[in-house]
């Protein structure tokens, strides 16, 4: 007898459409008939991990695959704590930053509560809330930025968590230290404020705040960081959150321990210890590619939104999802932005110059 899924599955799950990740490269190449595939859709770092992390991956002894990892990333938390000048118990490591989003929503929200975030930002805050039966209040960006005033207006007694993405994916805009602290002062500790700093290491602006340093003064502040972007170990899935000791103690109750594998933990340690200039090399590459693409897109008359982070967005004269398919036939994979509520825009990862040239040439061809 078949299970009665209408009765067994909560409506918030039943009505949620699962995200379908892209197929493996070989399948995509077969489907689109392209010989090569340049991935510019996920903001990955084409330089890969720093040399030390590469060495960890190369030298991982296969027999250790049989042994459970440290269940709470013991060594890594200690090193992160030393790095940020906080207590190791103020840190929770997760299977990518996506997992720590889930931890936070589980820890603070129940049906009837709501979260507040922006309409055009990283989608996972909204997704996790919706399939958990939590209302997601999405506030329109104002001139491409999180609108602090409008977000404060949407907060009510049922608001538990406010999610900010700083710098914002996909606009690259950011709140300065002054804007962030003014917002935290206005919230006044009544809600948890999450600042997702996935692209922290790419930002060179002087007024850009280090969220973790603010957790001393704002115990309702929780900061997310990831090793997927700058440190190039997206394939290992590892990220973390940091916050006040008591707040993190609550979040820890919803954590699934042992979710972060040993290679990821050790590679992340090596990333933190990197002294070869990995961050500088990556920033140089991103800067060069950004300048190149801005000029190329400008030459084609296409408006560009470019801020912080290793990506920019380009406005097209027509459908972004059609451009995606045409570019796939040319062997270039970008991110159409309709799902981010930016119809007719594409987001392009700032990778090496050769990839940028291939993208620009393909775009010229499909728009000709």
């Amino acid at each position, binding site marked *: 007898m*078949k299970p009665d899924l209408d009765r067994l599955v909560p*409506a918030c799950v039943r*009505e*949620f*459409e699962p995200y*379908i990740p*892209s*197929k493996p490269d070989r*399948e*995509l190449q*077969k*489907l*689109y008939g392209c010989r090569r595939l340049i991935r510019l859709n996920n903001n990955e770092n084409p330089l890969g991990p720093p040399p030390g992390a590469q060495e960890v991956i190369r030298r991982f002894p296969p027999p250790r695959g049989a042994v459970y990892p440290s269940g709470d990333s013991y060594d890594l938390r200690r090193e992160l704590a030393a790095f940020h000048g906080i207590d190791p118990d103020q840190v929770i490591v997760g299977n990518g930053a996506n997992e720590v989003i889930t931890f936070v929503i589980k820890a603070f929200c129940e049906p009837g509560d709501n979260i507040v975030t922006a*309409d055009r930002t990283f*989608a996972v805050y*909204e*997704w996790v809330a*919706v399939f958990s039966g939590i209302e997601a209040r999405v506030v329109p960006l104002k001139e491409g930025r999180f609108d602090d005033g409008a977000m404060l207006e949407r907060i009510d007694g049922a608001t538990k968590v406010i999610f900010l993405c700083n710098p914002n994916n996909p606009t690259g805009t950011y709140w300065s230290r002054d804007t962030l602290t003014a917002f935290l002062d206005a919230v006044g500790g009544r809600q948890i404020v999450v600042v997702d700093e996935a692209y922290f290491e790419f930002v060179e602006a002087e007024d850009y705040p280090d969220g973790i340093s603010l957790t001393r003064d704002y115990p309702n502040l929780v900061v997310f960081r990831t090793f997927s972007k700058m440190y190039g170990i997206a394939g290992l899935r590892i990220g973390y959150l940091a916050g006040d000791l008591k707040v993190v103690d609550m979040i820890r109750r919803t954590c699934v321990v042992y979710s972060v594998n040993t290679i990821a933990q050790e590679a992340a340690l090596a990333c933190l210890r990197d002294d070869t200039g990995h961050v500088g090399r990556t920033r140089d590459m991103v800067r060069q590619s950004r300048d190149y693409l801005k000029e190329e897109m400008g030459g084609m008359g296409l408006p560009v939104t470019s801020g912080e982070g290793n990506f920019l967005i380009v406005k097209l*004269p*027509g*459908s972004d*999802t*059609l451009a*995606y*398919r*045409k570019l*796939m*036939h040319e062997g270039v994979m970008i991110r*159409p932005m*309709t*799902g*981010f*509520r930016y*119809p*007719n825009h594409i987001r392009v990862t700032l990778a090496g110059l050769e990839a940028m040239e291939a993208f620009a040439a393909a775009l010229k061809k499909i728009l000709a």
Partner: protein
Amino acid sequence: MNPPNRHSNDTLGLQLPARPPFLDVATGFVESSVRALGMGREEALKLRLAAEEIFSYLTSHVRPAEPVDIRAVNGLYYGRVEFRFSVAALNMGALNITATGQFESDEALAEMGLVIASRTVDRLRITEESRGRICLAVEKEKTYPPSPDRTPPRAPFRDGLTIQRTPDAETLKQYAGEVARGRADSPGPAFFDYPGKVVDMVAAGDNEVIAAVDGAGRVAGGILFRFLTERIVEIVGPHVFDPSREQEIAEALLDAAIAAVARTRAIGLVSLTGLPEPVRSQFEPLGSLAFFRDEGPALARPAWYRFLHEDPGCPVWTNGALKEFLEREYGRLFLARDIREVQDLGETLKGSSIFSAEIRREWSEVVLRPLWPGDDLAANVERHIRFLREEGFLNLLFEIDLGVSWQAPLVPVLLGRRFSPGMIIPFAGQADLVVFQYHETRP
């Protein structure tokens, strides 16, 4: 996006055996239930008549003495009566709208079977909910007064523009009235002629409207959208009433509609009722169907589409006779598809095929969809054409789901009987749908 009809909990149910002595119980239940759920006397009587035909038919031809679940559903702007029952493969053929149980007796066909039940209602639809479990539903819409004022207002539009995601009832009525005022003789939806109905359609939750309002509070445009299938959202509009700001308002309305559905289960937007010029560059032309009318030449019905996400690609099953069309269209639309040809290698097919029929009287149209395979595909298609044409329907469409391999053998059957492929609608079924259209003369 709103969940499907939020009034669908207003449902009354009855289970009884499909036996003639219970006919009055069934029809009495239907009439009194839909009345209690808010339908007028006339509409309730028409649903009762349809229920009488269906129940009689079930007792005599489909599942004599077997249990039938009857549900009366309040759709707010329509009432629906659903009959659910299980069938065995042996009597599946009797569920075709043209079937009577006595296929050899053509004379009796027009006055028997499910065709007669469809005559008193707006829509009849047969679907298979699980293997062998059938839902036969009839719907009758409520009667609403037409828009009272057809004189164009003379006051000019003011500066300023606000996009209203959930307009109030008066704004919705203004919007519908303005659309009705500008509606040409087209196969577009007639519901705009009845603003009260539009208000109820939105309140029911299965349609949504976004309005654009000028600085003086006057409706300067609007867009209506709804889930057409599990993953496809149909947009109607955007309609712009201030011609001096057509581009700005059309783009703002479309952006707002996209924002509303961008993170839902929808994978694409389709426009079947006309798309204004300023937003066409954001869509892809799927093709065009003809809309045949009692008088005058057929009108063109162009359809437009845009994906909301990356095309995930998929395999599609077809007969060799359609391969060229598919290759051409997939190439034109840049869709990644693995076309797999289904070949008849002599395998045995048993039993009677069944097609579901969705009757849209307002457009003199029937949409046929294969529900069950069988060894009588050609005869069944011919029977449907004959009886539906005799019934006066001018527009016959047949949808083939390229995600369902057993439907592929229908392709040569349709092509050989004056059906031609009109368009592909991506992911409107398990995979893409091909819509075939019947032409009285060779297309």
